[in-house]
């Protein structure tokens, strides 16, 4: 399966809107994590538009696909995508991180909003995804379980416990997309704590593992298609990305991991995104 030009255009527009929403949400909140979601926007948009069976129409179908955001701090992007899939109105994004909002600073499980798991503590998501994949298989459901993770999160030991058990149980309905931007809070990942070759690691743990340019939606789509036809093991897609992609002064700057743009920066960022 190759993306049609129309589908590719749709993904690119959705990814652009993720970036715009991320800037606006973190700017309005005065805090949050803009760098990650902007880097992840292209591969997450590819997943949500071309693969993930989750939208306003099938939200309550028990056998729909699931999405666990292991790197929960990047939830501005998740919320944007859920709203773009028609699960809740775009206006709700303005409540992000505000008192009383269901769009918490890190995801809180909410079946009405398509938020499939509470995350935020790094390392927990892949285990949860594996449990969901086991349940889907037990029930004979065709659900695919997607987990977003990151290079920094791969420093958590629980990730490798989960990688071991998911391979042991042959969870071919489980797919992890690892945002590999070589940046974490304290600086450059390779300097803070080098996780080295994640593709080789996942492969050694018994997974089908590939590396792609996380901004190349055709490549990401190809990897997701390959994962869907891999029927004997879970799949890992290592997505090489640029933190803060799309806004010149944010790109590759660890400072934008968890800081919101001020008025001037938000205006400039939105201008660069063509708003």
């Amino acid at each position: 399966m190759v993306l049609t030009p129309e589908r590719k255009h749709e993904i690119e527009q959705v990814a652009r809107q993720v970036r715009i929403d991320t800037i606006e949400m973190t700017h309005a909140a005065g805090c949050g994590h803009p760098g990650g979601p902007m880097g992840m926007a292209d591969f997450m948009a590819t997943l949500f538009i071309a693969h993930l069976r989750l939208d306003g129409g099938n939200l309550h179908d028990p056998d729909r696909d699931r999405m666990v955001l292991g790197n929960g701090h990047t939830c501005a992007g998740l919320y944007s995508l859920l709203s773009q899939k028609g699960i809740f109105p775009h206006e709700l994004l303005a409540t992000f991180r505000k008192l009383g909002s269901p769009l918490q600073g890190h995801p809180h499980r909410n079946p009405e909003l398509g938020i499939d798991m509470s995350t935020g503590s790094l390392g927990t998501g892949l285990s949860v995804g594996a449990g969901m994949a086991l349940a889907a298989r037990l029930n004979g459901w065709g659900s695919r379980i997607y987990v977003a993770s990151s290079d920094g999160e791969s420093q958590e030991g629980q990730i490798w416990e989960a990688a071991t058990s998911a391979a042991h149980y042959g969870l071919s309905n489980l797919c992890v997309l690892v945002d590999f931007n070589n940046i974490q809070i304290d600086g450059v990942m390779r300097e803070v704590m080098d996780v080295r070759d994640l593709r080789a690691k996942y492969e050694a743990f018994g997974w089908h593992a590939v590396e792609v340019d996380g901004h190349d939606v055709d490549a990401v789509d190809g990897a997701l298609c390959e994962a869907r036809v891999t029927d004997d093991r879970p799949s890992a897609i290592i997505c090489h990305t640029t933190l803060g992609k799309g806004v010149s002064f944010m790109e590759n700057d660890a400072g934008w991991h968890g800081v919101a743009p001020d008025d001037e920066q938000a205006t400039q960022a939105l201008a660069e995104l063509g708003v």
Partner: protein
Amino acid sequence: MLAKTSETTTVETPSAKKIATRDAYGEALVQLGGERDDIVVLDADLSGSTRTKGFSKAFPERFFNMGVAEANMMGTAAGLAAMGKTVFASSFAMFAAGKAWEQIRQSICVPKLDVKICASHAGLTVGEDGKSHQMLEDLTIMGVLPNMTVIVPADAVEARGAVRAAAELEGPVYVRLSRAPTPIVLPDGHTFEPGVGTTLREGADVAIVACGVEVGAALEAAGLLAADGVEARVINMATVKPLDEDLLCRAARECGAVLTAEEHQVRGGLGSAVSDLLARTTPVPMDMVGVDDTFGESGTAEELLVRFGLDGASLAKRARTLIERKS
């Protein structure tokens, strides 16, 4: 909603019959598995010891051995529960509660999922394995978690009921189980109700509030005290969270002194919970029997209970001193 009616059952002395609560768990689990096909069981390489092995043989398709990886086991349990399963996850209390606390908090308690953590080998009565395996802090770290119900069955009869209740309760439950065979202190046909304490012996000189293996010790202490003309009320507080507040406040009012007893650190467990309640509502002289800010050691279960002052005679002694403080 938890029912709030208390029942009184008269049990004079512990029966000679001894069964470990973990054995009752294993049996109850197999029975539940036959009744409900949404029950899934996980274990962390201790299925022989935690007694989940029976379920694994009866329902192999619904049992998953997660290996020696407790954090991942709790996360996997959360994922299964998020898809509608009722999940029982077992290991030794030390590892289930101790190693995986943050996963239990983040992935199970925060989203309030139906994961029932049935942890065996709790407390000193693990015995010879010693301090690395003697979990004495689990009631503290499980009880402090919002959405978590905490149950410490007094005997095998109650353990069966607690396991069934855990399956029916909404949200996470922690059930504390023992390795050592312990006396049956509750009558056959006793029905466990979450949040409901049981008065096992009437008395108005002092109330002894106990959970787990200490319920037997409390009954023994009451027998010793009765020989001196002291009538101790014995209350089995199997649900440590939420407490049966009405029953406890009434006991404090009517007895004027409350002694708690648990096979756990004296701070942060049943005694702390009861004192917290009574200090706010019905302050009376109190004392708390438990392990006093120290780790355990190797020995037989019975030796250790004596060594740490958790046997019936020690409880009776503490009760006498406490009664002297009544004004």
